[in-house]
């Protein structure tokens, strides 16, 4: 029934994958920012899996930009993975695709 934000972090070699699902808006985006900051503080590579995001607005995009800047400042790798169609459309609208490293979904079962 609910499409709220879901955030789950998984370890991977050399870093962490933050798997995001549901809706990222003005209400929920602070929670995503906290989790991304936690991962970046942890060090290594951070990948944000956006395949399950049904809705993102400018507040959610702002969180991704903020995390990207922190990562750059600290010299850490930061990438978006498999953004959903809605996320891809909103990144394009913001003319921000080129600033992010965007990876395809990993092969095989997850």
């Amino acid at each position: 029934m609910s499409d709220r934000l879901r955030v789950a972090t998984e370890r991977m070699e050399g870093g962490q994958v933050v798997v995001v699902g549901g809706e990222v808006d003005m209400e929920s985006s602070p929670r995503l920012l906290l989790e991304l900051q936690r991962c970046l503080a942890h060090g290594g590579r951070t990948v944000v899996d956006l395949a399950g995001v049904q809705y993102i607005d400018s507040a959610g995009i702002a969180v991704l930009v903020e995390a990207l800047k922190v990562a750059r400042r600290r010299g850490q790798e930061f990438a978006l993975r498999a953004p959903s169609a809605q996320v891809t459309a909103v990144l394009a609208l913001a003319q921000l695709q080129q600033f992010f490293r965007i990876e395809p979904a990993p092969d095989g079962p997850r």
Partner: protein
Amino acid sequence: MGVRVYQLQVPAVASCLRPVRAFLTAALEDVLAAATPAVVLALDEACANVVAHRARHLGRDDVELRIELWPDRVRFRLAAFCAAADLPAIRPRDLAEVRAGGLGTHFVGQLMDRVDYEPDPQCPGAMALLLEKRLPPEGRP
């Protein structure tokens, strides 16, 4: 067919954006068809701006949205959207600069066919925001 009118009033807090989006999607997807997500995003951004930025001295603590379904377009009116004095500050940011924030106004301008402000007679010193989206041919009644 005449004009169909919907009205929504919700507290101006971030948790009200989700019910507003749910309502708009269900009410408009028949006529907006593939344009539904774009319009819902634009309205979400406009409502979020009321929640985040509207001047407190206007004394309003709600988001009041009127939706008019015309044969060829949908018209939206957000009452008491901003103080008249704040209008000059409401501009899309320079997209060349990568920074968090300042995107909402850009989205609204890109996604809607009309963006206008008019004095809000119900709220002295405030402007209402008018938004319009033309219906795709397949959505017209």
